[in-house]
């Protein structure tokens, strides 16, 4: 019998790492973006998408809230904001 064993490219999408996010999430302001793509390149989960200026976005299903995109953004166009309270949170 075999369980989860080998992974073909993009199969690990089943690991929904967004559930690890606890306190903060990145908020893309879409004001001063120059489309340098540094947020996309540095994201350890590869969950940033976008091509044009002010059109980048994050897939929160996988974003772990590490904040490196906000840190590297040369235009300070990404800010880390408190996680929106989920249903059932106190």
């Amino acid at each position, binding site marked *: 019998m075999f369980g*989860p*064993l*080998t*992974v073909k490219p993009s199969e690990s999408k*089943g*690991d929904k790492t967004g559930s690890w996010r606890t306190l903060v999430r990145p908020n893309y302001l879409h004001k001063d973006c120059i489309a340098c793509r540094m947020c996309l390149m540095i994201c350890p989960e590869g969950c940033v998408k976008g091509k044009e200026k002010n059109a980048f976005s994050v897939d929160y299903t996988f974003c772990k809230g590490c904040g490196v995109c906000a840190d590297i953004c040369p235009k300070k166009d990404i800010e880390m904001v408190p996680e929106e309270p989920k249903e059932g949170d106190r």
Partner: protein
Amino acid sequence: MKEFVEGSHAIAEIVKACQPGVISAYPITPQTHIVEDLAQMVSNGELKSQFVNVESEHSAASVVLGGSATGVRVYTATSSQGLFYMQEVVFNIAGMRLPVVMTCANRAVSAPINIWNDQQDSISLRDAGWVQIYAEDNQEAVDFHLIAYRLAEDKRVMLPVMVCMDGFILTHGMETIDMPEQEKVNKFLPVYKPLYKLDTAEPMSMGLLADPDYYMEARFAIQETMKESVGYLSEISSEFKAVFGRDYKDLLVEEYHTQDADKVIVAMGSVCGTIKEVVDEQRAKGKKVGLLRIISYRPFPYARIYEALKDVPRVAVLDKAVSLGAYAPIAVEIKAAFYGKKKGPKVISSFVAGLGGRDITLESVHEVLRRLTAKEINSDFIDLKPELLKEEYGK
């Protein structure tokens, strides 16, 4: 062809016959002769294989993991501290379901440092997900390597196998071996065709993160495969018999005069040769004594052991290892096999002997039989020297 050879050399010969594509090992007594011989065979061009020299056992295990992941047959060997240094990779190899075969030349573990034989090293790694089979003599050790590759590479199994042979007693012992001919080896052990492998043309990853949604199933699958392997061992054993003529029955246990016995000793490895001699001697005197030899320690053949011992009144389990602070390792399993069952021995007593290479003599086995009375005892040390236990500190 029959050859009179050292155990280690015989192992090197059979590994050569299995044609592994990658061999990696780091020398440690008493495993050294095996890999020395293999290194020589590779350098002489007798064996076309990559022998990767490494700086440690951790690296040796990592090299064979990587080699196996690329889809070739691999081999490594180690002992004692070397096996422990490999430990995290040993678990990884099983978790990635790679059919690595390793020889463990069983040796005691430090401290105090001791190079002689007991079975503490491999027994301590019993939970790693490796199949562990223990040889009684060098013929078995040789044959078990063929069986190990067959089982490991079986598409239903894909688990690593450790062939355990007692250090020095077997590895450095000279014995006449019926060495399997290459032609028959090729017939019994076909070229390895991996189910999955690292390949740039078809990329994939192994051993990646499995979060709580995935991890348990990966472990459960190994557990189930281990249980199924009990049957596969028997299957492969009968195929082995068909090709080579030697019969290891179900490859789980060997029953030696257990049928009508009043007292049975349960043991594993080379010590069983000594115990058989005592059994013969006792039987000649009309005493109903027997031996149950465990061949497969992982998977542990509970059902088979239940059948073999259910009508035996007294059982002595002889361990060449300890689980410090608990009952001895094999004894625990034997007792568990009978818990809650209607039939079973009235007494299952447990003995520890031969640690760090102390000889288990005929007299030691007689002592076990003498101490196997109506009163159950646990982890009773045989041949202990009380005079060595008088050191005092802190005064």
